[in-house]
């Protein structure tokens, strides 16, 4: 396995499970494997007390499991015809089957000053530990791009007591994924938290001598001590592309349901691969950690001689931003509009518990369905709780062809501390059908 993230480690474990006699070696450029990089913003925000909590397994656990992990070891090239990899400092290493799990890079901001100190790219846990100490001295920070990580970092830095500015070229946060009405409460909560947002604003340069002191934007300069660069993820396929493996329109590796690449005996998993969206077959890349891990399991099993298949994806997603949870599955209104996918829509504003029960939170649900058969094609939500569970449920609903009629007449749990009399999903479906009858 080349890569020690969720996909690489998932593949290693699955390969050993499929064939306990298999000699499994993982090469990683980093000092650690088996930790949750997604948890880093929450340690910075002090919701999680220490980075140690993010580690899932000890290094000894992998030794015991018979997985040979070569830390801080870089694979410099792959020869697929000779079935060999070149490893820096170790020479040529042969393989029977190879799994590429080389992950992602952040998109280059493409502006002057990107080499200044004080620009933080959240990725590696050891660097995050160092940056966490730096954060103790930071008074003003700029977060570049309202990507999923950007949203988490904005909230985390504000929790830390740092004055935060968010700069994004789109009209609202997470605009490539979420709808503006869904993100509105997040924006309002950021304002309450003292966060300054700059939408429809492009970064022109990072300014400073040696270390960043300001960000120049199309709307003026913003002084800062630190910049969290949260540009979108791009598949890291340098090694694979140099080896001649087929790369798709997303820039990620082309794979099939077995996670097999275009080269015999070479599998790939995680952010470096592209998968078809199950509704319209458009390939997409750089999904979530849970996708990467599941793909790794498939790739590892097949690499070790087993048989396992992955599937086209519906991409349920969710995250916490400001004082809200946002989430969804498959298409939102913005993406469906962009792609020209016809849809009918229903929206409902509901609550998460009985209206009188302490801690009750608002929940907004928006459903999109095919105009003809009313099959669900996507959903978006914002609320105080219960968003992840609804996103997972609606992901399965889209996958199994559930219709608005099914959802409008669904049975739901009613219990004052955990669920309201009316389930917002059902009410959104009823509203969609009512508007169709008008």
């Amino acid at each position, binding site marked *: 396995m080349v890569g020690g993230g969720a996909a690489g480690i998932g593949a290693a474990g699955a390969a050993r499970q499929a064939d306990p006699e298999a000699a499994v070696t993982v090469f990683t450029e980093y000092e650690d494997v088996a930790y949750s990089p997604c948890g880093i913003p929450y340690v910075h925000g002090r919701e999680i007390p220490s980075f140690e909590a993010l580690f899932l397994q000890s290094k000894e656990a992998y030794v015991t499991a018979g997985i040979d992990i070569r830390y801080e070891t870089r694979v410099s090239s792959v020869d697929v015809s000779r079935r060999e990899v070149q490893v820096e400092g170790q020479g040529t290493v042969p393989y029977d089957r190879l799994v590429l799990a080389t992950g992602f890079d952040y998109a280059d901001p493409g502006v002057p000053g990107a080499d200044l100190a004080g620009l933080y790219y959240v990725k590696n846990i050891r660097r995050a530990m160092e940056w966490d100490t730096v954060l103790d001295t930071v008074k003003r920070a700029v977060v570049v791009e309202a990507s999923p990580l950007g949203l988490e970092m904005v909230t985390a830095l504000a929790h830390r007591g740092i004055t935060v500015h968010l700069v994004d070229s*789109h*009209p609202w946060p997470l605009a490539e994924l979420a709808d503006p009405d869904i993100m509105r409460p997040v924006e309002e909560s950021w304002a309450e938290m003292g966060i300054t947002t700059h939408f429809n604003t492009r970064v022109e340069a990072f300014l400073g001598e040696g270390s960043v002191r300001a960000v120049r934007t199309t709307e003026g300069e913003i002084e800062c001590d630190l910049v969290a660069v949260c540009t979108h993820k791009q598949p890291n396929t340098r090694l694979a592309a140099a080896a001649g493996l087929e790369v*798709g329109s997303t820039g990620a590796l082309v794979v099939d349901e077995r996670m097999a690449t275009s080269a015999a005996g070479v599998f790939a998993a995680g952010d470096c691969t592209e998968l078809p969206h199950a509704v319209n077959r458009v*390939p997409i890349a750089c999904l979530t950690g849970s996708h990467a891990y599941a793909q790794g399991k498939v790739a590892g099993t097949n690499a070790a001689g087993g048989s396992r298949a992955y599937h086209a994806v519906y991409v349920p997603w969710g995250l916490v931003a400001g004082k809200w949870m946002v989430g969804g599955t498959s298409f939102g209104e913005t993406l469906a509009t*962009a792609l020209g996918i*016809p849809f009918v829509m229903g929206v409902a504003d509901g609550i998460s518990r009985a209206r009188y029960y302490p801690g009750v939170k608002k929940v907004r649900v928006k459903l999109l369905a095919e105009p003809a058969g009313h099959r669900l094609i996507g959903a978006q939500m914002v609320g105080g709780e219960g968003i992840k569970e609804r996103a997972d449920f609606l992901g399965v609903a889209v996958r199994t062809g559930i219709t608005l009629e099914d959802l409008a007449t669904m049975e739901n749990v009613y219990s004052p501390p955990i669920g309201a009399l009316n389930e917002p999903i059902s009410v959104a479906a009823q509203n969609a059908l009512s508007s169709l009858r008008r």
Partner: protein
Amino acid sequence: MRARFSRWLRVNSERYLLESAQTEMARRYLGRSGPAGERGLVPSLWRHLFVPVYHRLPPRLRQSAIEAMPGSHRRHWQTPPPRSHTPGI
């Protein structure tokens, strides 16, 4: 060459189709203007030629064009089994 073309087409079509949808949605829901996009002849051609033509294409033709592009979607992927409408027991 084909891979490079499909990458170029994907990057630009995604960018300008999203920009157009975001402009419409920002106006409708927020009363804001569209994204701070680049200016010039090439962006203008994408905005004023490609985007309207894409939306006027019949959906089947559009889907065929997408499926003709190289990528993972052209390899074998299982589809979920059809729903059963019979009772569980």
